[in-house]
């Protein structure tokens, strides 16, 4: 319990910063919808003039025009996914490597505590943090959509389906970050690793949509949980979800065994 509280305390600041700025970003963008709506579809026309590959790159689809609140939300949420991915990868890369990077490993691991307990405590702290982000995003999204829908209809069930994907989406990055961090000897800089992972996945997903390759929906969470796709279909892609869950469990289990057998590098 002491390690759990300690970890929670140590990520408290980053949690507050991330969750508030992500929610603020979402609120800020959604608040512009009434303006967009009042322009009476002229934006749609502008968008229609762009080549379809270009609009697809940004996650837009002619099936879901941005002059509708659902289309506008899909576009906004697609961008919000980027900081969500970076935040989650940060946790993943950070949490099991921090002691060796900041040279506090000798302190923690020479205490009477099992490594598995340390790992559970850290995972627990991350889960709490991700839950906080989720709750904040749920609340701010639902309030904003209701306030700024400008008289148009909101498909709340579809919105909740999109929001429910955040947890899987983030755990994917946590898991992959963790397994990479325990496979390597040292993670010199967490941010460069997490940027590479999350932006890499984002680019891969965007290119995939642009070229209509349909591969990334089995690889990149940005495609697995593309808000445009979910809002059009009205449900999550089951195969994508299943693959994501397998990746989450697989990476966490692998991290567990590698972490337990790890030789803690001396200073």
């Amino acid at each position, binding site marked *: 319990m002491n390690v759990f509280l300690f970890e929670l305390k140590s990520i408290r600041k980053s949690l507050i910063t991330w969750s508030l700025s992500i929610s603020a970003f979402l609120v800020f963008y959604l608040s512009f919808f009434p303006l967009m709506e009042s322009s009476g579809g002229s934006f749609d026309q502008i968008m229609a003039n762009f080549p379809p590959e270009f609009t697809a790159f940004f996650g837009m689809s002619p099936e879901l025009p941005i002059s509708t609140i659902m289309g506008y939300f899909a576009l906004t949420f697609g961008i919000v996914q980027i900081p969500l991915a970076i935040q989650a990868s940060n946790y993943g890369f950070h949490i099991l490597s921090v002691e060796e990077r900041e040279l506090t490993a000798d302190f923690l691991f020479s205490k009477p505590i099992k490594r598995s307990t340390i790992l559970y405590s850290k995972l627990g702290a991350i889960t709490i943090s991700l839950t906080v982000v989720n709750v904040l995003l749920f609340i701010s999204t639902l309030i904003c959509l209701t306030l700024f829908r400008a008289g148009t209809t909101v498909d709340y069930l579809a919105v909740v389906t999109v929001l429910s994907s955040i947890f899987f989406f983030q755990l994917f990055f946590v898991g992959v970050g963790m397994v990479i961090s325990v496979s390597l000897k040292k993670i010199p800089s967490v941010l460069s690793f997490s940027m590479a992972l999350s932006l890499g996945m984002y680019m891969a997903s965007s290119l995939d949509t642009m070229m209509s390759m349909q591969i990334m929906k089995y690889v990149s969470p940005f495609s697995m949980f593309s808000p445009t796709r979910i809002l059009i279909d009205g449900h999550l892609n089951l195969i994508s979800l299943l693959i994501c869950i397998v990746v989450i469990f697989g990476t966490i289990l692998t991290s567990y065994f590698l972490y337990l057998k790890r030789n803690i590098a*001396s200073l």
Partner: protein
Amino acid sequence: MNIIEFNHLTKYYGDVKGCEDINFSIQEGEIFGFIGPNGAGKSTTIRTMLSLIYPTSGSVTIFGKDAIEFGHEIRQDIGYLPSEIFYYDKMKVIDLLQYSASFYKKNCDQRIHELAEIMELDLSRKIQDLSYGNKKKVGIVQGLLHSPKIIILDEPTSGLDPLMQQKFFQLIVEENKKGATVFFSSHILSEVQQLCNRVAIIKNGEIVGIQDIKELRGDTYKKFTIIGTNLNHGKFDVEGVTNLNSSDHKVTFFFKGNVNHIVSLLATLTLDDVLIEEPTLEEIFMHYYE
């Protein structure tokens, strides 16, 4: 009773040898010295005891239990002071110590304050503002606050001024009198000489000797320094003489055996000066180091 047993402990980092076939045991209540030059395998051996690293083969048994399998139980009664001290920089000293204490099944508050007073450590400061020596003091308090049965010290004195070093040694001796077993790793022989009962010498990852310090020093070896003229005649190369170093004007050697042999030999010579003293451990062990 053997409180720590190394059973053919071997650790390789890939192809690089950390330590090989370490095989000895430490009795309860001992202050046991562990000396060797830098990179000899001292820290590797210690880190295996704490299951910070896993042995390639062999094992360490502490309190009769395997150090890897029962690591977390064993560490309940181990206090460890690492050679390099790094802690959560942004914490206050007292917060770190209380976090450290929270791992043990006893209340350590009183002991924290006692130890901080002895070591003259300001508990309210932030760790990042402390000097190296003060961080070392945090390490000492952190390692002793739960009154451990085994105290493992890895080069503990670097960064401490001589006065603090003495206070620290007194502290260790007191803990030892209360029943703690001390495993003291160092490359400074004089401090090992001051504290320890027995000592193991490690070199290139292997134990090259285990000696009783008292037996090793006073009783056996004498160091002779003889100054005169025309001394380079080879008469000193007799049984019991080691480390012989002779020139025309000065001869030095260690002697182990009946001193009358050497005294009667000296009586036949005309000397300017003679010095007979106890050698320091450095001098006795120097050949292990070279």
